[in-house]
């Protein structure tokens, strides 16, 4: 039985129904991902509305020069990276502790209710989180100042003080992602072989030794993978979070402006289309390089868990 030589068009014919089923998705990603990629050329153009993306005149590296000389570039890059690193460290530590405790605590009802409550913030839109923040931080009627005044202390003007925001944003991020991450880690702990625990019990290990010697080491692979993948996104700011917590409050930009909010503002309020495109391109490149590096690290560590 010799296979008949067949070409590309024979394959198209053979798989025509499967290919037809892929058409909508291919079209979707062409329109919303691949064609916009060609719009990167805007970063090297002086945009005008009559010319559009392809008809506007070129201006070489001017947009980038403008972006990097303004001092904004360093500020937003630093903020984006530092915030994300803080989120990764704080969120993972709290989530791992919560998952281990949830696993060890006996009461079934308590576990169920706690998990449900911890997961709740994940379901709330950033707009609602912004409303909650307003309730807490408002100078005149905010809960925090109500408390401070009640204790006979001076009220704090949170929305006008940049120094408070790194702490606030780290706490908010921890609050929003706590349940999500805890469930992830709990799934990993639950899949640890129970025989190991029984063996440790027979050896007379106490419960703390059991956690430190069995649970934590067995959880490590999952932690390392999740952290490495998060590091891959270290230059992607969570626009929804920063925009709803801070908005367009210029007083706070020194400590709260990230690449995403900067690009958004340049596009919508200051109308610096070319510069905005340049900043966006710069972010995409940074992101691409970090994801590649992170994935390389994951591959080295555990080939099966790599993205590609």
């Amino acid at each position, binding site marked *: 039985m010799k296979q008949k030589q067949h070409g590309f068009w024979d394959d198209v014919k053979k798989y025509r129904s499967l290919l037809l089923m892929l058409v909508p998705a291919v079209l979707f990603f062409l329109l919303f991902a691949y064609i916009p990629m060609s*719009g990167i050329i805007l970063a090297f153009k002086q945009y005008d509305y009559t010319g559009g993306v392809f008809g506007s005149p070129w201006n070489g590296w001017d947009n980038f020069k403008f972006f990097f000389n303004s001092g904004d570039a360093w500020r937003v890059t630093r903020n984006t990276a530092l915030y994300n690193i803080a989120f990764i460290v704080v969120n993972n530590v709290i989530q791992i502790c*919560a998952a281990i405790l949830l696993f060890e605590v006996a009461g079934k009802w308590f576990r169920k209710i706690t998990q449900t409550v*911890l997961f709740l913030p994940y379901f709330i839109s950033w707009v609602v989180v912004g*409303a909650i923040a307003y309730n807490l931080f408002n100078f005149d009627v905010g809960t925090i100042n109500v408390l401070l005044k009640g204790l006979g202390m001076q009220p704090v003007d949170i929305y006008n003080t940049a120094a408070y925001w790194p702490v606030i944003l780290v706490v908010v991020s921890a609050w929003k992602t706590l349940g999500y991450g805890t469930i992830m880690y709990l799934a990993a702990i639950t899949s640890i072989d129970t025989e190991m625990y029984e063996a440790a019990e027979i*050896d007379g290990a106490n419960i703390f030794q059991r956690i430190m010697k069995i649970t934590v080491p067995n959880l490590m692979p999952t932690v390392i993978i999740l952290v490495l993948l998060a590091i891959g996104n270290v230059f992607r700011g969570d626009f929804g979070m920063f925009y709803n917590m801070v908005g367009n409050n210029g007083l706070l930009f020194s400590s709260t402006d990230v690449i995403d909010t900067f690009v958004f503002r340049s*596009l919508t309020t200051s109308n610096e289309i070319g510069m905005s*495109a340049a900043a966006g391109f710069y972010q995409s490149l940074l992101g*691409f390089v970090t994801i590649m590096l992170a994935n390389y690290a994951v591959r080295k560590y555990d080939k099966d868990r790599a993205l590609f």
Partner: protein
Amino acid sequence: MSSTTANLKTPEVSRKRGNKDKMILAIIGYVMLTVLAIFCIFPFILVVSSSLSEESTIIEKGFQLFPSAFSTEAYSLLFKYPEEMLRAYGITISVTAIGTLFGLFLTSMTAYVLSRRDFKWRGRFSFFFFFTTLFSGGLVPWYLMIVNYLHLKDTLLVLILPLLMNVFYIIVMKSFMSSIPDAITESAKIDGAGDFRIFMQLIVPLSKPALATIGLFIALAYWNDWYNALLFISKSELMPLQYYLYKMLGNMDGMRKAMMASGAVVNTDLPTESLKMAMTIVATGPILLAYPFIQKYFVTGLTIGAVKG
């Protein structure tokens, strides 16, 4: 190291010690987890009680955990002139329903093709989709594409299309479908069923758990979406719920105008603070009500997603 010392003791002693350690851990666990749970739920209680406080008390004393003067004025005002809010609700419900239905259909159909081991270009197409998560043109070209080339500004479509498909969901769905035994589809193929029919009549019914999970993730994304409205919607009649809330939080004068437009005689001193909080509760309500019932599907989704297939 410690296990050798433990072995020297009599079993009796070590069991007692073990119980004591368990007690200590249980205390730490219950205390810590309770603190975390309070930390997570406390803001919600704060917003609810603020929305039920009398405006004058808020102005005088600020927001409090337990309202010292109970009032439902904010809610009655909201429900007295509900046109704007109901319209925003209508937009959100329609966008969520249409988007989830089509998104789920397209996601699962794409995932099915990619899960077919006999499909020669499976790897190439998988990479075609996956690459979009690694690199993008950034916000500006995407924005101009939608506004200047597709002309979708101020349409209902602009709230549906951008969230329609998500590569991560395609991957999760594909790994689920890969676990369906080939034998099931083999016999259908021998009977001469086409690929689309196999997908619709065999694969979809077998994928129900994954469809429910991914469907709820898509629905949640639509329900909570305000970003696309912020970028592309300026007409008030197309505002989805979250964006309407966003506008109200930042702009109480707009709220007053909207109420006047709907025929309300509004005195100049609206209970702004309690109204903001009441609005927040009304916008979050359905999620909070559905939450206990849908939570488990999300947990399943996370655990499927955590273990990459």
